[in-house]
């Protein structure tokens, strides 16, 4: 069966199955298990209403449990076994990882990414949000800076491969160097700094995200606070840094953490641009180099990523609980 037909069939079965499940389960609950008639009608309605939320939740909880909760446990369990998966070796995979210089490079680079990308993207996003706020063509400018959000990491990498190309007839950077009489160089092979050239691709993608959210936050600031500051003689910079930024600090933190989480997941850019060569490996791409080869190692790397994400996860959950109160 062709995949297209299979896809159509899956949509029909998937959507039909969902509708059918919800409809049928509600009917069974109300008519068969706890019928709203007879001597216990009132009690039955209450019972049915206690059960119903779980009917609504069940498919989502099942999928979430299977596809996101189970893997956390499953990955950790698998990381305690050797390559073939039949020999329990405890934490040996982790010990081997930490002994390997490639892993330490990946961790170091990953920390660089986590420090630089969210900071730069948030800063640029805030800058653009503020600058375009009262601009006549601000919305067009924002839309264009937001555009890379729609482009895949692979597509973005290719776009920047052109920019970074060592050939002065293809790469605009080397073309500028060429016209200044400098020798062409490959930005992706300059030790240490090549990481920053890769990071900039993600900054290029994520600035639009930061801009959209921070721009909305800036608009939400009460005008009176700004007017009062101006009447007190504050200059535009003071208004921005001492009046506006403190009021949107919460949003800045949300943007920052969201991008941090993303940074820990993206392997596409390194994979496409350098394949991890020239000391540009980061954990997600390092993990992929073990995928299909050594599941024990691969899951161990994945679990290290999970541990790095954990502080943000806990912070997010606490924020969410605070809001609900």
């Amino acid at each position, binding site marked *: 069966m062709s995949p297209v037909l299979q896809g159509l069939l*899956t949509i029909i079965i998937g959507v039909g199955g969902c509708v059918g499940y919800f409809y049928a389960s509600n009917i069974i609950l109300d008519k068969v298990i706890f019928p709203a008639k007879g001597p216990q009608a009132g009690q039955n309605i209450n019972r049915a209403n206690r059960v119903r939320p779980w009917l609504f*939740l069940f498919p989502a909880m099942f999928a979430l449990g299977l596809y996101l909760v189970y893997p956390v446990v499953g990955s950790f369990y698998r990381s305690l076994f050797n390559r073939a998966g039949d020999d329990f070796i405890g934490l040996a995979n982790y010990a081997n990882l930490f002994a390997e210089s490639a892993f330490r490079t990946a961790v170091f680079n990953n920390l660089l990414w986590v420090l630089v990308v969210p900071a730069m993207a948030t800063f640029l996003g805030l800058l653009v949000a503020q600058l375009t706020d009262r601009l006549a063509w601000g919305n067009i*400018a924002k839309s264009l800076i937001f555009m890379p959000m729609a482009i895949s990491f*692979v*597509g973005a990498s290719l776009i920047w491969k052109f920019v970074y190309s060592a050939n002065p007839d293809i790469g605009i950077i080397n073309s500028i160097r060429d016209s200044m009489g400098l020798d062409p160089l490959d930005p992706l092979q300059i030790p240490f700094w090549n990481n920053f050239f890769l990071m900039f691709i993600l900054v290029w993608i994520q600035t639009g995200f930061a801009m959209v959210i921070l721009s909305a936050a800036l608009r939400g600031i009460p005008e009176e606070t700004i007017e009062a500051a101006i009447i007190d003689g504050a200059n535009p910079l003071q208004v921005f840094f001492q009046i506006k930024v403190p009021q949107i600090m919460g949003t800045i933190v949300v*943007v920052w953490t969201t991008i941090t989480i993303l940074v820990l997941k993206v392997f596409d850019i390194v994979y496409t641009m350098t394949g991890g060569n020239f000391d540009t490996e980061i954990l997600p791409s390092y993990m992929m180099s073990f995928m299909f080869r050594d599941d024990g190692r691969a899951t161990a790397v994945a679990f290290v990523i999970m541990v790095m994400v954990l502080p943000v996860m806990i912070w997010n959950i606490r924020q969410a609980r605070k809001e609900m109160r």
Partner: protein
Amino acid sequence: MDNIAGQNQGGKIAVNITVIILVLLWLLPTIGLFVSSFRERDQISNSGWWQAPFAVDLNFRARVAADGARQDGDVYVLEGNLFDDPDIAEAFPDGNGAVAAFGTRAVAPDEFTPGTSTELRRGGTLTVQEDGSFRLESADPIERGPTIYLAAETPPKFTLLNYDTVLNANGMDRAFINTLTVTIPATIIPILIAAFAAYALAWMDFPGRGVLIAAVVGLLVVPLQLALVPLLSLHTSIGIGQSFLGIWLAHTGFGLPLAVYLLRNYMVGLPRDIIEGAKVDGATDFQIFTKIILPLSFPALASFAIFQFLWTWNDLLVAKVFLPSGAESQVMTVKIADDLLGSRGGDWGILATAAFVSIAVPLIVFFTMQRYLVRGLLAGSVK
């Protein structure tokens, strides 16, 4: 407000210029890709895309036949015009080519300026004029015609040839269909599942609701990397293996936290009166959900659908792991990253075109539905 803020004219200009620079920095790389996809291989390797609207010097090679040689006094002479060579004539259809430089060796195709003469290694003196006419004089009979290299200014030229190659010969059409096949079910299926759960979390009262919401928030950030190995072995053990069905299930699972979170945030904000009014009138939860909540939540459903669409369309990781690696099931991102970058690493025109084919649909979706995307981002993050 502008004048209260004390912004002077100079400040305004500075702001405008800064924004223009930023927008250009953000836009130019993509334009470069777009322009490059319409240029031929020779053009790309001889001049930057920013020079595409201008003429470029391209190198050509002319193999001159010796049969026009004649004897003139005590020397032998071969005369002709380089632009008569069929390959070169093709590049100058209107016949106005001009020689910018010429040479006799492949390593130095632009060694001499037109009008000068040079000694050939095999003997004889070659002179090439700017209009392409050449004259070879030799003391010995000319038995073999020389090979002459020349650089000539060629007019800018745009072509759809790359698109033809990418779509027909490179199998990008297959990859495009595969991407579409992965994307559409993976976008539609999670929506309904998530909507029911979101309604329960937003409007139904039951013990443990707070914990479940917190769990969804936590699951939002679980790295996908963790899921790859355990789920692939799970899929293999229940017989799904690496297949489209497997990737649909995987994308559905991975998209659910965002879907539930977005939809719940939106549904909580719906007016309480409507829902309570309906309950008083005897509507069941199922009816409230299908008749009131779903239609009212359309903006949030659209936001999530766009997110999920962009995410699955652009995904490389899940496709690499959950789909078989053969050409018949490769999606575009995998095709570009694994196939084209490896085998066509130097063919910039093909790469640019393939990349553009893969980002065209997301860009269209982005520009037509930006409103929903922005709304979704705001609902998902600012709280």
